[in-house]
């Protein structure tokens, strides 16, 4: 099978991504995997990654044959987790919402394997017109959000990251969140810098905080729930 897999971590701090990359298991016969890090969220701006995980198919000529779409190849461990009666209400609600996010893991894995085997003849390969039609839209507010998030990043780095960086970036990242509420990479990246406890690699809860107006649970519910949280692949 000639398929290469390239993972792109959207992490403003590459040190946050490194432990996950190092922990990825190597297995005999698996496709080669190259790990890249997108510290500037350049793929958000140029390709339309608006959440993670999202996937993009590129053929041997460098042509995109499927646009960015939400995808997994295995069912999330959260999907079948039982919610205990003793759980804190917010945690229970967050898991309920997470479990409402549609999963198409088996079908998506089959589609990827079909493409790996049949290449351009795969029925899942899109024509250029279909790719552009299915690509993420960008209205004028979303375009300004790109500039605002990028400006926030520049100020964050110039201040040396940390609390000083957050203070410098906050107005611009908040503006990006307000302008493009459907872009979860902007929001989740910013929230996790605020809510991750010292010494922890990340915080998947991304709860209410004093720095940004939103948080994962309330924003997902406000934006339409689990169904609206993903970019559903067309035809899979």
């Amino acid at each position, binding site marked *: 099978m*000639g*398929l*290469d*897999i*390239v*993972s*792109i971590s*959207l*992490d403003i701090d*590459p040190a946050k*991504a*490194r*432990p*996950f*990359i190092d922990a990825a298991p190597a297995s005999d016969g698996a496709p080669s995997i190259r*790990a890249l*890090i997108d510290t500037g969220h*350049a*793929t958000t701006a*140029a*390709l339309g990654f608006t959440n*993670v*995980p999202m*996937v*993009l*198919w*590129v053929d041997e*000529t*460098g*042509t*995109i044959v499927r646009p*960015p779409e939400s995808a997994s190849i295995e069912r999330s461990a959260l999907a079948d987790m039982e919610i205990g009666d003793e759980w804190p209400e917010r945690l229970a609600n967050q898991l309920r919402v997470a479990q409402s996010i549609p999963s198409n893991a088996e079908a998506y894995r089959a589609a*990827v394997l079909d*493409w790996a085997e049949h290449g351009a003849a795969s029925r899942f390969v899109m024509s*250029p017109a279909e790719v*552009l*039609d299915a*690509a*993420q*839209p*960008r*209205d004028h507010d*979303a*375009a*300004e*959000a*790109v*500039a605002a998030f*990028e*400006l926030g990043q*520049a*100020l964050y780095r*110039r201040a040396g990251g940390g609390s000083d960086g957050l203070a410098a970036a906050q107005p*611009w990242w908040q503006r990006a969140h307000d302008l493009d509420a459907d872009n979860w*990479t902007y929001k*989740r*990246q910013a929230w*996790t810098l605020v809510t*991750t406890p010292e010494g922890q690699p*990340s915080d998947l809860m991304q709860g209410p905080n004093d720095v940004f107006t939103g948080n994962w649970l309330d924003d997902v519910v406000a934006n339409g729930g689990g169904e609206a949280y993903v970019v559903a692949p067309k035809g899979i």
Partner: protein
Amino acid sequence: MIATTERLDAAALAELGWVLKPEGLCQDDVCVPLPPDAEVADGRVDAALVAARLGRPFVRDDATGTVAIGPAGGGPVLESTTLPDLELTDTDGNPFRLSALHGRQTLLVAWASW
């Protein structure tokens, strides 16, 4: 595109995909004229003016004078089906251009620690 000055030089304009010529801002055979009173000195032109002429969003941090110009809005994010030649980094911090993937069938998978 980020700039630490409000007057863009040739390199900054090139990052946006444009070149400053006597006809105005040019990209291949297309030129967008600048207003007659536009101040162009040493090949530098005002960032807000460039953004306005190109129909791009412009934001400015007053405290630092840092500016950013966003992409055009009103269409799909993908301008074409050719994979953009973005420069990312590998796990050792070395630059890696996506054009290096040419010749291979590739699945690009976006993920994050968060």
